[in-house]
């Protein structure tokens, strides 16, 4: 314990990651009724945590991975330790989580102002920050799993934040249950691993996997099962429908949890034990397939929806699919880099949308456009920046990460994945700019808000816009926009940082920037993005465009995309048939007929037998004597014979 206070790294780690927990406890127990104090505690804690994360990143920039651990469970071959594992990946992710959480909490100061559940919101934000940070630096898979679940819990609380609304609480439940379904597979994978390998420590796992220390079938089965956790948490096919529904939560929550950090936890976990996954080609192949399907499916769903947040939600699912594709194709750096840049511009997109929603009190992009969305300069510019980054346009960060991914996919023997990647890029650009053009260039021009008079409303908005709410929401957005611009140029330093420690365990990562084919790839990538933007312009942007979208000419396909490819309906039907119709009715019948019936039967039996035996008390003397004599005679005969 002495090392705790003398070692600045350990101190920074422990304090930084656990301070949000203390803030949550303090808010929930003490300052629930004092919103101002609660938000100050929470923002202070997360700011400190972000500073610690940056400090750690700076300190350990060129050091080898650091591991602190204490042995928790030791039984024969089984060794489970708890502790921290600080390698470049976890430090990078810690920084991302810390900084983005800090920015989002500052943003929430403005967005959630006046909400009755203000303190509760900040308490749960702190809970999330604590859980996520601890998950990131977890040293063993079990610890990671525990905090994985806590993150899911925080997500449940925050999605169902407006709990009086039926759809919100249902969405929270759906998110939690779907995550749980994935986590069953995850836990089974961990158990399989414990049985086969005996140690759940992450560096140990990676080392053993890469040095051929594990049998192949153990690897494949447990990798597939652990991948179920990724499917659940990162909303891959088939468990992807909870993420669009999770938009019921407040927009900052969507920005933080369901775009940048929590759903990226699945991808993060994948990359954490990347050597382990990479040692099993079958699991990687399946992951690649699932990632591709997810990416394409959700892109199509994003093309038909008019809800602002839903577009970005589907986009998140799609980009997560792309990250999984990259990792599954062997591109460790590509996947992680895309995770980083995606965190930046997706949070930006959500926060800007949040400003629009907060202003116009509607999620519908058409109404926002009509009522003068483009008049809000800062969010409009920043959302355009974000969309350009998402579509992979130079010089924004998305361009660089998308190129990296396409490079990895090009190295695959089967070119179908690359084609899917290109197609996905086209769709991504299309739906993002569909949204931008709806707000920027609405049909029939801007009409303004119908319910206020123009003069007073302009006046009010002037006042409001220059209050703290305005700056609280504007500053994080601007910071993230700058990040989206700059991050692309930091590709080389980040790659060097991530991979210098990877030399310790030889990972078959593909060199993403070598070879003559990269020029062709570059051109194809850029043109894919520009093609998508052009189609969107053609349909929505230019004057006199019909704004119906080419899909409206195929109503059947529109319906298919709109109904989320009937996945939800399928789930609902199977749930109704199997779970409610089958299991619950079985259990209800068992409860009523067997258990209650059994107890009732005992009562009836007791009562009935009592009634039967009461006939013995006839009150007639001679019957008593009769029984006596019979008994005596029988006894005598028995002893005689």
């Amino acid at each position, binding site marked *: 314990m002495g090392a705790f206070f003398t070692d600045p790294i350990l101190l920074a780690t422990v304090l930084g990651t656990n301070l949000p927990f203390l803030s949550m406890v303090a808010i929930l127990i003490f300052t629930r009724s004092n919103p101002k104090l609660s938000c100050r505690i929470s923002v202070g804690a997360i700011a400190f945590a972000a500073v610690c994360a940056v400090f750690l990143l700076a300190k350990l920039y060129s050091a080898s991975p650091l591991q602190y651990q204490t042995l928790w469970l030791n039984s024969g071959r089984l060794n489970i330790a708890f502790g921290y594992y600080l390698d470049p990946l976890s430090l990078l992710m810690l920084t991302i989580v810390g900084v983005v959480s800090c920015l989002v909490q500052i943003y929430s100061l403005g967005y959630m102002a006046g909400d009755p559940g203000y303190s509760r919101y900040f308490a749960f934000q702190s809970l999330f920050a604590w859980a996520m940070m601890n998950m990131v630096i977890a040293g063993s898979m079990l610890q990671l799993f525990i905090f994985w679940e806590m993150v899911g819990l925080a997500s449940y609380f925050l999605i169902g934040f407006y709990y009086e609304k039926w759809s919100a609480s249902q969405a929270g439940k759906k998110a939690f249950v779907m995550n749980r379904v994935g986590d069953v597979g995850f836990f089974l994978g961990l158990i399989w691993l414990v049985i086969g390998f005996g140690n759940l420590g992450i560096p140990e796992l990676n080392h053993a996997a890469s040095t051929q220390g594990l049998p192949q079938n153990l690897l494949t089965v447990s990798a597939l099962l652990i991948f179920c956790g990724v499917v659940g948490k990162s909303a891959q096919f088939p468990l992807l429908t909870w993420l669009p529904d999770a938009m019921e939560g407040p927009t900052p929550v969507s920005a933080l949890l369901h775009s940048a950090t929590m759903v990226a936890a699945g991808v993060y976990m994948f990359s954490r034990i990347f050597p382990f996954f990479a040692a099993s080609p079958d699991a990687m192949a399946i992951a690649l397939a699932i990632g591709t399907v997810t990416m394409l499916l959700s892109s199509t769903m994003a093309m038909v929806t008019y809800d602002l947040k839903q577009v970005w939600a589907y986009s998140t699912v799609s980009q997560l699919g792309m990250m999984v594709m990259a990792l599954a194709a062997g591109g460790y750096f590509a996947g992680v880099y895309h995770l980083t840049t995606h965190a930046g511009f997706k949070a930006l997109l959500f926060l800007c949308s949040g400003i629009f929603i907060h202003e116009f009190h509607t999620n519908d992009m058409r109404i926002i456009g009509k009522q003068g969305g483009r008049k809000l300069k800062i969010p409009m510019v920043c959302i355009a920046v974000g969309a350009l980054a998402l579509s992979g346009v130079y010089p924004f960060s998305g361009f660089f990460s998308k190129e990296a991914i396409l490079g990895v996919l090009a190295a695959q023997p089967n070119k179908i994945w690359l084609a899917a990647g290109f197609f996905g890029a086209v769709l991504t650009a299309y739906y993002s700019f569909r949204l931008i053009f709806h707000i920027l260039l609405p049909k029939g021009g801007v009409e303004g808000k119908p319910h206020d008079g123009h003069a007073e409303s302009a006046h009010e908005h002037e006042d409001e816009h220059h209050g703290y709410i305005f700056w609280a929401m504007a500053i994080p957005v601007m910071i993230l926009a700058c990040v989206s611009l700059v991050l692309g140029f930091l590709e080389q330093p980040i790659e060097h940082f991530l991979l210098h420690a990877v030399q310790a365990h030889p990972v078959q990562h593909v060199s993403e920037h070598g070879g003559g084919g990269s020029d062709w790839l570059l051109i194809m990538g850029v043109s894919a993005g520009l093609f998508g933007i052009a189609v969107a312009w053609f349909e929505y942007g230019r004057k006199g465009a019909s704004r119906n979208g080419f899909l409206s000419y195929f109503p059947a396909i529109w319906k298919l995309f709109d109904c989320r490819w009937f996945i939800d309906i399928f789930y609902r039907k199977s749930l109704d048939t199997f779970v409610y119709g089958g299991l619950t009715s079985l259990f209800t019948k068992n409860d009523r007929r067997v258990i209650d019936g059994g107890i009732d039967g005992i009562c009836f039996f007791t009562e009935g037998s009592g009634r039967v035996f009461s006939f013995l008390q006839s*009150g*007639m003397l*001679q019957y008593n*004597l009769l029984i006596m*004599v019979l008994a005596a005679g029988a006894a005598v005969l028995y002893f005689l014979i």
Partner: protein
Amino acid sequence: MNSLSTYLIISALLFSLGLLGILQRRNLIGMLIAVELLLNSANLNFMAFNRFLTPDPVVGQVIALFVMGLAAAEAAIGLSIILALYRKMHSINIERAQRLKG
């Protein structure tokens, strides 16, 4: 005649008849009569054992006297109980006395 088992069988028969009377008769006094039969069969048993088995024949006779005295006492009390019961129930039918029926 001069064997113990004859007397034992006779007394067993008398006892069975007395038992039958107790179990089957509805008249209280009839039951009492049957009880007297029972007592007498026991007495006969004692006298028979006295005649054939005991060393000192006085003992059996003293016992027989004792039993007779007790039978008398019991008959007296039984009859007075029957009288009391009759005054209460206004009948000497035992099947009417079912206040203890549960």
